[in-house]
C-alpha cells in the first residue's frame, strides 16, 4: 500500500487529478450546452410547423366553414404518426379530433401550450408531451393543433446519455494517464535518488542517467552531473594539494627533527644545545612561512574573494617596496632601479601586492648575487606600466634565470612549490606571487630576460 500511497503523493498525480477535474467540468458544460440548444432548436421547429398547419386549416375554415374544417380534421386525424387535432364548439363539445379527455377548460383560451397526455400503445398508456396551439374561430369554435415531442425527447435523452458516458470515459482515461505519468516520473526520480545515494556513499564516479529527451528531468540530471564533475575536479585538486602540503611540510619537519636528535646525541656543552635550539626555532619559523604561503595559495585556488580591497596606485606600492629594499640591494652590491609610470590604479590589497613585489625583488637580488656577469649587469629593474588595460608590474634580473622549459612547468603547477628554487630561502617566492596575482584576477608570467629572469604580475587596471 505504501507504493500506492507514494504514488498518490507525487506531484504528477496531483496535477493529473486537477486536470481531470477541470476537463470534466469543461466537457460536461459543452455537452450540456449542445443538448440544451438542440432541444430548443427542435422545439422551435415544432412550433413553426404547428403554426403553418393552423394557417392552412384557417384558410379551409374561411372558404368552407366549420363543416369543411371538421372534415379536414377527421381525415388528417386518422393518418398514422399524425399530429394532434381537436375542434370543439364554444361550449367545449368535441366536433372532431384524435384526442379525448382533454381538460377542455384549459383549451378554451387561445395560445401555445405544452401538453402532457397519455397515448395507449400496445394496450399500455404511456406519458407523452406535446406542443399545442389553440385558436378561437369565428362562431366560438376552438381549433387545437399539436405535435408530439416524443421523438425530440428521445433525441435529448440520447445526447444526455452520450454526455454521461463520455464524461465517464474522460474520467477513466485521465485517471489512467495521471497514474501512468506519475509512475513514469516517479520511477525516474526514484532512480535519481538511488544514484545520488550511491554517490553520497562515496562513489563520486556515479552519474545520473540522461534519457536524451531534453525534458526537465533530463536538464536536472545534466546540471547535477555537471555539479558532480566540478566536485570531482575540486576533490582531485584537494588531494593533489594535500599531497603537496605533506611533501612541503614533511621535508623541513624532518630537518628539524634530525637536528634536534643530532644535538641530543652529540651535544656536550650548553653552547651546542643553544645552537641546536636556535636552529630549531629557525626551522620552525620557516615552517610557519611555508604554512602561511600554502594557506594563501589554497585561498587563491578556491577563488576566494579578498575583503578589504581598494583602489591602489601600483606605482606607489612599487616605489615603497623598492625604497624598502634599496639599502639591502646596495649592501649586496646590486643596483635596484625603478621605472614606474605616473599613476597605475588597480583594485588591490596593497599589503598582498607589496608582499608579492617584495618576494620578487628578494629573489631577484639573491639570484643576481650569484650572477656570473660583471658588476655592470648586476642590476634589478622594477617597472610598472599599463598595457591593454592591464597593469604590468615586473621585476627583471640578470641572474641565472629559469630554463624556458621549466617556466611553463612552474606556472602550470603553481600549487606545487618549485623545487628548482629551494637553494636559498624557503623557495615559496613564485608560488606565493602567483597566488596573489590570481587573487587579484590576474596572472604571473615568467620571461627570459636574456640573461636572467623577468617576472611580470599582470592584473586588470582600473580605468
Amino acid at each position: 500500500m505504501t507504493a500506492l500511497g507514494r504514488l498518490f503523493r507525487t506531484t504528477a498525480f496531483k496535477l493529473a487529478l486537477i486536470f481531470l477535474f477541470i476537463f470534466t467540468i469543461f466537457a460536461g458544460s459543452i455537452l450540456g450546452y449542445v443538448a440544451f440548444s438542440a432541444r430548443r432548436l427542435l422545439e422551435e421547429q415544432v412550433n413553426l410547423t404547428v403554426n403553418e398547419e393552423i394557417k392552412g386549416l384557417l384558410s379551409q375554415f374561411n372558404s368552407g366553414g366549420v363543416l369543411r374544417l371538421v372534415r379536414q380534421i377527421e381525415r388528417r386525424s386518422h393518418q398514422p404518426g399524425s399530429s394532434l387535432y381537436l375542434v370543439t364548439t364554444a361550449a367545449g363539445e368535441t366536433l372532431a379530433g384524435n384526442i379525448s379527455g382533454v381538460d377542455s377548460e384549459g383549451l378554451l383560451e387561445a395560445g401555445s401550450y405544452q401538453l402532457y397526455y397519455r397515448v395507449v400503445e400496445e394496450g399500455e398508456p404511456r406519458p407523452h408531451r406535446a406542443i399545442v396551439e389553440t385558436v378561437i374561430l369565428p362562431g366560438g369554435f376552438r381549433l387545437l393543433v399539436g405535435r408530439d415531442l416524443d421523438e425530440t425527447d428521445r433525441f435529448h435523452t440520447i445526447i444526455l446519455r452520450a454526455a454521461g458516458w463520455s464524461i465517464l470515459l474522460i474520467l477513466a482515461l485521465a485517471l489512467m494517464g495521471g497514474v501512468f505519468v506519475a509512475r513514469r516520473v516517479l520511477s525516474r526520480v526514484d532512480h535519481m535518488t538511488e544514484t545520488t545515494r550511491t554517490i553520497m556513499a562515496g562513489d563520486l564516479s556515479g552519474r545520473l542517467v540522461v534519457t536524451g529527451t531534453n525534458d526537465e528531468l533530463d536538464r536536472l540530471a545534466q546540471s547535477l552531473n555537471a555539479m558532480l564533475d566540478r566536485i570531482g575536479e575540486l576533490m582531485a585538486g584537494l588531494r593533489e594539494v594535500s599531497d603537496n602540503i605533506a611533501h612541503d611540510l614533511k621535508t623541513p619537519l624532518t630537518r628539524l627533527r634530525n637536528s634536534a636528535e643530532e644535538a641530543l646525541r652529540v651535544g656536550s656543552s650548553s653552547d651546542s644545545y643553544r645552537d641546536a635550539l636556535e636552529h630549531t626555532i629557525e626551522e620552525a619559523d620557516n615552517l610557519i612561512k611555508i604554512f602561511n604561503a600554502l594557506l594563501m595559495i589554497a585561498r587563491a585556488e578556491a577563488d576566494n574573494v579578498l575583503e578589504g580591497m581598494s583602489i591602489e596606485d601600483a606605482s606607489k606600492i612599487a616605489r615603497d617596496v623598492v625604497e624598502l629594499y634599496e639599502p639591502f640591494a646596495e649592501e649586496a652590491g646590486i643596483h635596484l632601479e625603478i621605472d614606474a609610470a605616473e599613476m597605475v590604479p588597480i583594485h588591490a590589497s596593497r599589503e598582498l601586492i607589496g608582499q608579492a613585489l617584495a618576494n620578487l625583488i628578494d629573489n631577484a637580488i639573491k639570484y643576481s648575487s650569484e650572477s656570473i656577469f660583471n658588476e655592470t649587469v648586476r642590476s634589478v629593474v622594477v617597472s610598472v606600466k599599463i598595457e591593454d588595460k592591464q597593469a604590468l608590474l615586473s621585476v627583471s634580473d640578470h641572474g641565472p634565470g629559469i630554463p624556458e622549459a621549466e617556466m611553463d612547468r612552474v606556472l602550470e603547477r603553481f600549487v606545487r612549490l618549485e623545487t628548482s628554487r629551494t637553494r636559498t630561502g624557503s623557495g615559496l617566492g613564485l608560488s606565493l606571487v602567483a597566488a596573489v596575482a590570481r587573487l587579484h584576477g590576474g596572472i604571473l608570467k615568467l620571461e627570459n630576460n636574456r640573461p636572467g629572469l623577468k617576472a611580470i604580475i599582470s592584473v586588470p587596471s582600473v580605468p
Partner: protein
Amino acid sequence: MAVASTTAFSLDQYRKISRHFNTMKILIVEDDASASAYLDKAFREQGHVVDIASDGLDGYALASEGQYDAIIVDRMIPRMDGLSLIHGLREQKIDTPILVLSALGQVDDRVKGLRAGADDYLSKPYSFSELLARVEILSRRGRSIPTEDTVYRVADLEFNRLTRRVTRSNTEIDLQPREFRLLEYLMRHAGQVVTRTMLLENVWDYHFDPQTNVIDVHVSRLRAKIDKGFDNPLIHTVRGAGYTVRDSAR
C-alpha cells in the same frame, strides 16, 4: 651582518639595565591551558602580573572591571568569541589596550580584528619577544614620551617633529624621509624594545614578514648617521627581539 655588535644586549640583559621597567597587569583570555600557562610564566619572568580567563565570558567579566594595562585575547575561545568580546568592551567604553593573538593570520583577518576595536594583531605562532615588545608598547605605563610632544629628546639627540630638524650635540643631521620616520618611531618608544615587524608595520605600513633583514640595513644606515663619531651610542640591538633607543651613559 655586523650590526654594531658592541651595542647589542640579550633580552634579559636589556631587562636588567632598563630604566623604564614597569610592572604591567595583563589579562590573558585563552582557552588552551598549556598556551596560557606558557604566557603566564613568561610574563611573570619579566616581572609582570597576569590574570588568566579560559573563556570569553570570564574574560569579559574580568576585563569589564577595567583594571588592566593590557589584554591579550585569542580569537577562537568558547562561550563568546574574541572579536565579540572586544566589541562588547569597546561598547562599554573600556579602552584598555587589546592585542589579538590568533591562528587566523590572513590579511583580512587582521583587518577584522582591528575593525572590532583591537589595538594590535599578532598571528600564531609567535615569538614571545615579539609579543612582549608589542604589549609593552601598547600598555600606557611603558610610554616614556607623550605622543603629543613636538620635540623628542634622548641624551643629546633632539628630534623636532614640526620643523623636521634632527640634531645631535647641536649638529644638524640630514635624514631621508623614511629615516626620519624610522627615528621618530624609535624615539617615541625610547627605552622600549621595538621589533623588526613593528618597524615594518609602523614605518612602512606593511605586515608581511620579509624574507631578508631589510629592516636591519635601514637601521644600520640610520645608526651610521646618528651614532657615528659619538662615544655614547643611542640605537641598540636587542638580540632575538629588535631595537631600542636609549641613553646608555646615564
